[in-house]
């Protein structure tokens, strides 16, 4: 045991101030936690992909997820796509009218919907609805030991739970994006003919003329990447849920927020890379 003089000397000279030490170790601990999380996410993603080609195949589970994710998300994607197309026509036509180019409304609506808004908004809608659902479902299974029970019964939970969700999310985000694009073009078309009194055939002609292979490639590659992000992020947060119902709630929130932020960030990076590759 130290006497008071010894203790005073140690505190004054050897040891850093307590608050500073805590801040330093707190930051290192936080950084370590983030790196461990990134490692766990990478491992989970790797195993999820590896299981795509490994037996047994859970076709029934994949179909069930596709139904829940695809059919369930259809109404919100239809509405989002339709009104986004309509509002794009409204906003762009006002600007184009200033330059006497209002007949090009279809062209700009098509480009903005197919390249950017269709994939991004569909990705965000699917993330909001399904990342939350997946993370909470998997999180509940983890905290009630159902995932441990699955392992104890000889089933790989990543193969049974994560891989079907990955396949379903990729295929459904891709399909829903095409539907959202179509709805967006129809929304723009209806606004153009009803409110702007434009010629419908001209709208479709300029829209189709504007869309090239590179635009289609951008618009169809993005939902595949967004699908991967949504499924893997939701499965990661769901499967790492700890601490009962509160932990499940936290995992759900983190899944939605992380998936949404990653979609927007990845959209920028992908756009930059694809424009660099294909040209604007």
């Amino acid at each position: 045991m130290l006497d008071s003089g010894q203790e005073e000397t140690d505190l004054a000279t050897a040891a850093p101030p307590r608050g500073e030490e805590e801040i330093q170790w707190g930051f290192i601990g936080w950084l370590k936690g983030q790196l461990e999380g990134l490692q766990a996410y990478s491992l989970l993603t790797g195993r999820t992909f590896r299981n795509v080609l490994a037996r047994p195949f859970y076709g029934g589970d994949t179909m069930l997820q596709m139904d829940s994710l695809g059919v369930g998300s259809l109404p919100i994607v239809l509405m989002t796509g339709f009104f986004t197309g309509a509002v794009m026509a409204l906003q762009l036509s006002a600007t184009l009218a200033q330059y006497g180019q209002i007949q090009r409304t279809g062209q700009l609506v098509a480009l903005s919907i197919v390249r950017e808004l269709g994939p991004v908004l569909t990705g965000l809608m699917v993330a909001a609805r399904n990342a939350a659902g997946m993370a909470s479902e998997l999180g509940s299974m983890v905290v009630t030991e159902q995932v441990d029970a699955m392992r104890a019964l000889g089933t790989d939970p990543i193969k049974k739970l994560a891989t079907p969700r990955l396949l379903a999310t990729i295929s459904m985000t891709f399909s829903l994006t095409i539907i959202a694009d179509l709805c967006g073009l129809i929304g723009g078309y209806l606004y153009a003919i009803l409110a702007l009194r434009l010629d419908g055939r001209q709208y479709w002609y300029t829209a189709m003329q504007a869309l090239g292979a590179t635009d289609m490639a951008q618009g169809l590659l993005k939902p595949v990447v967004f699908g991967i992000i949504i499924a893997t992020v939701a499965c990661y947060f769901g499967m790492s849920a700890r601490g009962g119902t509160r932990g499940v709630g936290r995992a759900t929130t983190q899944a939605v927020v992380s998936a949404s932020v990653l979609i927007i960030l990845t959209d920028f990076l992908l756009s930059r890379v694809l424009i660099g590759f294909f040209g604007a």
Partner: protein
Amino acid sequence: MADAPIEIEFDNVSITLGATPVLRGLSLRVRRGETKVLLGESGAGKSVALKLAIGLLRPDQGRVIVLGEPVSTMPEAALYRLRRRIGIVFQESALFDSLTVRDNVAYRLDEEHAMDLEAIDARVRACLAAVELEEVMDKFPAELSGGMQRRVAIARALATEPEIMLFDSPTGGLDPITATNIMEQIIRLRDVNHVTSLLVTHRLQDAAMLAAYRWDAEHNALRPADGMSAHTSFLVLHDQHAVFDGSAAELHASTQPYVQHFLQI
């Protein structure tokens, strides 16, 4: 009993979860047909020991050998095959809440595709009959009481006719009648099916029942054992390590301070 082969062996096993040491230097052996009861307070590491035995957790140090296989070092894919020979009943049953009782019990059989549907249904009925729950086949776990869920969990663990059963507090939180009923099923498994078991509990009455009763297969009823059951032994966990390992008689005669304290609670 002493000549029977060892089916579960922990050799100097230690594990830390997060920053907390849970088990330190745990060694135990369970022979074929024996039921080893792990006693100790909540948080003593009993459930962790069960998860180590089935490979859901891996030790930081030491070896776990089950049915001759090195569970602590086996790859996960090999563990899935070994687990077919081991049944586990979790503390909170851990039934799949989106599946019916039939599908829960048949889960492993459905996954394997090794039996036809009729044979699977027959096996499910037999397992549910063993726990006296045939009538709930088409119900979901949420529609059952806690005791019924625990019995369905036992039926699910029995479906593949395992050589080893692991029970994690099978009577925890249940009323005395249901708890006695479940202990009867465990004694029947020990005495009729000669299943090797590792049973975790903090309830001394469960341990006493296992030691003092036997299953009379002829009359299909529970009877007091002649003396203490030779097929049941006890291990007491305290402060992350085993403080006692021996028979019921040795447990009662133990002078170890924590064991005496535990028995007097």
